[in-house]
């Protein structure tokens, strides 16, 4: 079973051990593979006054990412933040922070600005966590200017921090809520596959 989540919802989600202790909470998402995958999370302490932690959580050490908590086996799986950032960078750059980036089609049309990142999580034993779409503040090109829409992403994307390039056909698979968006992503990726 897989489900889609907005990465903005992950912020402050508790990191809980299988022993039932909340040892941290998510601070930021670290992207890997050029922004196409989640590499891990930087962490903050629990509580209002707790600051950022020196340790981070690599995606490979996440037992499960649920609606209410990030499950890990125990405190021992946390690594230094440097290690997590470096290993994510080694897979092709962190992709930086895509929020605010302009999404351009390969045909040169501006679709809008990224306001959130949509990831796909499989329940239990997930070996990777794919970035499958962006929520964008739509431009005039989508005919729904000013509203937020979801656009599916191909497996790999070109991102510069300033622009993100998506295939022009992405705009035919725009979604408006997460419920139906999973199917749109599949259709979009199947079409890209067929066109190859």
């Amino acid at each position, binding site marked *: 079973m897989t489900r889609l989540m907005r990465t903005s919802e992950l912020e402050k989600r508790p990191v809980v051990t*299988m022993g*039932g202790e*909340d040892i941290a909470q998510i601070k930021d998402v670290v992207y890997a593979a050029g922004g196409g995958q989640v590499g891990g999370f930087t962490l903050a302490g629990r509580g209002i006054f707790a600051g950022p932690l020196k340790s981070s959580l690599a995606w490979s050490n996440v037992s499960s990412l*649920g609606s*209410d*908590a990030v*499950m890990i086996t125990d405190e021992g799986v946390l690594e230094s933040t440097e290690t997590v950032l470096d290993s994510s960078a080694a897979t092709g750059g962190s992709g930086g922070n895509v929020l605010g980036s302009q999404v351009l089609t390969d045909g040169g049309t501006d679709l809008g600005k990224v306001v959130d990142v949509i990831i796909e999580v499989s329940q*239990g034993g997930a070996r990777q966590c794919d970035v499958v779409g962006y929520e964008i503040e739509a431009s005039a090109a989508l005919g729904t200017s000013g509203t937020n829409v979801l656009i599916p992403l191909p497996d790999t994307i070109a991102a510069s921090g300033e622009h993100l390039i998506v295939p022009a056909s992405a705009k035919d698979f725009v979604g408006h809520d997460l419920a139906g968006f999973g199917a749109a992503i599949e259709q979009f990726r199947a079409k890209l596959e067929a066109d190859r």
Partner: protein
Amino acid sequence: MRFKESTGRPVVSLANAESIGRISRFVIDVPTHRVSAVQLDKTKDKHQQFLTWETISAFGEDAITVADISKIVEGDEAQKLGADKHHQVIGKRALSTFGDELGTITDVEFDPETGLLQSILYDSGEARGDHLKGIGSYAVILGVEAN
């Protein structure tokens, strides 16, 4: 038998038929999914508060019987830790191993003969006793899927 109904039940000495304490808290051993000890209150010596499961003669509907008062012991570190407020289950958040909240733990059903946990009850369902994965200050972790 359940935790809630058993709490407050008297502990009676078979040697002299006196009440020598009252069930206050349960100590759960998570790896074996069983009650390993009970903590008492109203004991004669407030430093002697624990009954190791094996020393209980019978865990009855109306009373818990033990051979004599010597069975009530100070308790080891593990028992004291298991009896502290962070390791109590009733009223605590129930979280699945998948990271989804299940609700709040309402009660625990156990076998009065062996102390084995039979089911963990929460407000929207129940889990088998052997699906208990952890008890911590934040949550009780259960190996079940969210509804």
